[in-house]
C-alpha cells in the first residue's frame, strides 16, 4: 500500500487576534485587506512567535499553533496531550473543519467524524428518536445509515424505554449516553474525540473507552483523542503528540511522550539560589542559600510523576557559631490547604539525623527531605521553607517559595479512570477476609 498515512499536517499554523478585530488603524486594516485579497499573507502576522500567555507578545496576535508538521498512520490511536493553552483544542478545531488554519495545510485520507462535544444540535423538544436522526445528520451520516444503526445506538445508550420521549425529560446521564452513542456509531475512518469522557459516570466512561478501543484496535480506524486524563490516554492510545505553547514537541509512542509530558510541566523554578529566594522573614542565626527540587532519576525538576519521590533540598548558612537550627517545610495545595508540615526532629522523622540537636558551627549545610512517590495526588503543590532556631521566634521564613506539580502517569489508574479526589493519594494496605458463608 503506497499510502498508509491518514493525516498529514504541513507547516500548520493558526493565529488568533487578541482584543479588537482590527490592526488599530484604518490604513493598516486596508493594507491587510489588500494583501489578503491578492492572496498574500497578512503583513501584520509574525510567524514563529511562541504562544506564551505570561509574556506580553510583540503584537496583538497570538500563535495558537505554529508550524506543526506530523503524519499519523492509518489505524493509530493518537493521544494529543499538552498543558492548558498548548493548542490542543485549536488543532482539533482545525481537523474538524470548524475553523481554518492561518497558514499550512492538513491532508486527510478518509472520512473524519469529530466529537468535540456530545449532543451538538440536540433539541430539547424533540424525542430521542428524532434527535438521533438530527444529530447523526449533523455529524455527517446519511438517513439510511442512521436507520441501519438505530437499534445499535439505542441499545448502546440504554434508553429503549425513552426513545419517544423528548430529551428534555431525560436525566443528564441518559442525555450524554444517547449523544455519545450516536457519535460512536459514525462510520468514518478517522474519529476525533475531545475530552467527552469528562462527562458521565464511571460506568459510562468505561463503556466509552471500551467503545473507542474497539474502534481503534478492532476496526482499525484512526482515532485522535485529546485528554488530560493520562490514564485514559495510556490505555487507549499507542502514540501521542505532545504540544507545548502551540508547537509540536514530539510525536512518539505513548509511554515516552507521557514521560516527556511530566518533565515538560509548568516550568516552576526547581532550583532557587540565594538572592532569588523570596525571604519573607530573616533570621540572625541562619540564612537560606538554595532551595531545590529533584527527582531521583531526572535531577532537578519541578514536575513529578505520581510514582516518583520528590526530593526537597534546603541549603543554608549558619551565621553564628554554636546555634541549633532545624529546617522545616510546609506543603500546601493551590487552594492554600495545608497538606502536611514536617521538620527535622528525631520523633518526627524516620531516621535519626546525626546533625540534629547538635550546636552547629558557621558554614553551609544541606538538609534533604523526601516526599515519597505514590503519596501525593495528581495536583499542583506549594512549599514554604523555614529555618527554625532554638528560640523559635527568630526563624527564617521563605513562604510559598517552591511550586511543583505531580502528574498522572496511569500507574494507579488501571481500574478507575474518573476524578480521584483527595489531597493525597497513597497506596494503602487493604485486606479482605471471608467472615461467613450463607
Amino acid at each position, binding site marked *: 500500500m*503506497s*499510502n498508509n498515512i491518514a493525516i498529514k499536517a504541513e507547516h500548520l499554523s493558526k493565529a*488568533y*487576534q487578541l482584543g479588537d*478585530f482590527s490592526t488599530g488603524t484604518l490604513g493598516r486594516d486596508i493594507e491587510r485587506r489588500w494583501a489578503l485579497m491578492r*492572496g498574500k499573507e497578512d503583513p501584520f502576522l509574525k510567524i514563529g512567535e511562541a504562544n506564551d500567555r505570561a509574556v506580553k507578545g510583540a503584537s496583538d496576535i497570538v500563535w495558537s499553533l505554529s508550524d506543526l508538521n506530523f503524519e499519523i498512520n492509518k489505524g493509530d490511536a493518537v493521544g494529543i496531550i499538552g498543558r492548558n493553552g498548548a493548542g490542543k483544542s485549536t488543532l482539533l*478545531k*482545525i*481537523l*474538524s*473543519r*470548524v*475553523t*481554518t*488554519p*492561518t*497558514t*499550512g*495545510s*492538513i*491532508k*486527510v*485520507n*478518509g*472520512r*473524519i467524524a*469529530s466529537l*468535540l*462535544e456530545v449532543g*451538538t*444540535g440536540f*433539541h430539547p*423538544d*424533540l424525542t430521542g428518536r*428524532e434527535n438521533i*436522526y*438530527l444529530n447523526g*445528520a*449533523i*455529524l*455527517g*451520516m*446519511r*438517513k439510511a445509515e442512521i436507520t441501519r444503526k438505530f437499534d445499535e445506538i439505542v441499545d448502546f445508550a440504554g434508553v429503549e424505554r425513552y426513545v419517544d420521549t*423528548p430529551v428534555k425529560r431525560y436525566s443528564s446521564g441518559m442525555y450524554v449516553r444517547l449523544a455519545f452513542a450516536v457519535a460512536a456509531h459514525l462510520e468514518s475512518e478517522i474519529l476525533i474525540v475531545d475530552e467527552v469522557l469528562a462527562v458521565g459516570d464511571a460506568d459510562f466512561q468505561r463503556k466509552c473507552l471500551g467503545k473507542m478501543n474497539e474502534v481503534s484496535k478492532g476496526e482499525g480506524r484512526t482515532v485522535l483523542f485529546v485528554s488530560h486524563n493520562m490514564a485514559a490516554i495510556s490505555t487507549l492510545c499507542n502514540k501521542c503528540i505532545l504540544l507545548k505553547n502551540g508547537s509540536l514537541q514530539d510525536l512518539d509512542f505513548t509511554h515516552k511522550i507521557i514521560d516527556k509530558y511530566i518533565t515538560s510541566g509548568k516550568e516552576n523554578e526547581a532550583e532557587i539560589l540565594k538572592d532569588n529566594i523570596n525571604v519573607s522573614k530573616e533570621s540572625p542565626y541562619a540564612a537560606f542559600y538554595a532551595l531545590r527540587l529533584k527527582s531521583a532519576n531526572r535531577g532537578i525538576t519541578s514536575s513529578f510523576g505520581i510514582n516518583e519521590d520528590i526530593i526537597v533540598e534546603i541549603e543554608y548558612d549558619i551565621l553564628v557559631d554554636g546555634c541549633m537550627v532545624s529546617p522545616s517545610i510546609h506543603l500546601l495545595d493551590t487552594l492554600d490547604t495545608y497538606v502536611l508540615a514536617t521538620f527535622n526532629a528525631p520523633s518526627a522523622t524516620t531516621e535519626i539525623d546525626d546533625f540534629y540537636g547538635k550546636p552547629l558551627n558557621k558554614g553551609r549545610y544541606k538538609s534533604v527531605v523526601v516526599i515519597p512517590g505514590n503519596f501525593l495526588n495528581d495536583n499542583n503543590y506549594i512549599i514554604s521553607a523555614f529555618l527554625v532556631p532554638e528560640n523559635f521566634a527568630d526563624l527564617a521564613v521563605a513562604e510559598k517559595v517552591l511550586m511543583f506539580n505531580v502528574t498522572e502517569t496511569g500507574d494507579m489508574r488501571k481500574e478507575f479512570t474518573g476524578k480521584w479526589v483527595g489531597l493525597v493519594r497513597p497506596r494503602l494496605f487493604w485486606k479482605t477476609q471471608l467472615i461467613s458463608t450463607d
Partner: protein
Amino acid sequence: MYANNPEQEWDLEIKPHDSVFNLHLKDVWNYRDLLWLLVRRDFVSFYKQTILGPLWFFIQPIFTTVIYTFVFGNLAKIGTNGAPGPVFYMAGIVAWNYFSDCLTKTSTVFRDNAAIFGKVYFPRLIMPLSIVVSNLVKFAIQLVLFFIIIGYYMFKGANIQPNIYLLLFPIVILLMAILGLGLGLIVTAMTTKYRDLAFVVSFGIQLFMYATPVIYSLSTAIKNHHEIIAFNPMSGLIETFRYGFTGTGEFYPQAFFISVVASIILFFIGLVVFNRVEKNFVDTV
C-alpha cells in the same frame, strides 16, 4: 500503483484560503438529509406544547389582513384596483411574509448557530437553506388560506380573474426565496464583525414593506409619480404574484426584469460572501 504521484490520494485537504468561487455545492448536496431533518425540527419544535399547533400559521395572516383592511382600506382609503380588500391585502401579506421571514431568519444564522457551528462541521449553507425551505412550507400552508379567501369572494361574485401570469408563480416564489436568502446571507456574514446590522434589519424590514406595493398597488404608486417604487426588486414580484392570482393590477415587464436581475445578483453575492466568512467566523463571533 500510486507511487508516482501519492499526493493525488488525499480525500480532503484543509487549507487556509480557497477560491472565492468554490461554493462547495457538492458538499451541500451530500448533506441534503440534514436539510430535511432541520426543516422537520423547525416544524415539530414550533408547535410542540402549543394548544393550537399549526393553526398559528393561519392566525397571523388573518389578523394582519383584518387590520390592514380596516386601516388602509377603510380609514386611509387606499385603492385596491377594484379587488375586495381582504383578497388584495392577503395576497400582499402572504407573499411579503415569505420574503421577510427568509431575510430576517437567515440574517441571524451565524449568531443563532454559533454554538453548533463552533463544534461540528457541515456545510454552513445547509442552515440558511433549511430556513428558506421551512418558510416555504409555512408559505404553502398560508397559501391554502389565501385560496379559501379567493374562493369565498369568487363565489360571492367579486371581480377576481386568475390569468396566464399565474404560470410565473413558481418563478416568483423562487426569486423571492433567493432574494431574501441572498440579502440574509450578506447581512449575517457582516454581522459576525459588525453587529449593528442586525438591528438595521429588524426595523429596516418593516420600512422596506412600505416601499413595496403590499398595501397599495404599483399602479397607484406610478399614478402618483412614485415610479421609483418600481425599482425595488420586490415590487415586480409582489405585483406579479397578486396580478396572476386575482387579476388586480398589471404585469410590469420592466419591474419584473429588475427583480430577476437583482435577485440573481444578490443571491450570488450572498453565496460568495457567506462562503468567505463561514470558514473561520468561529474565531470572531
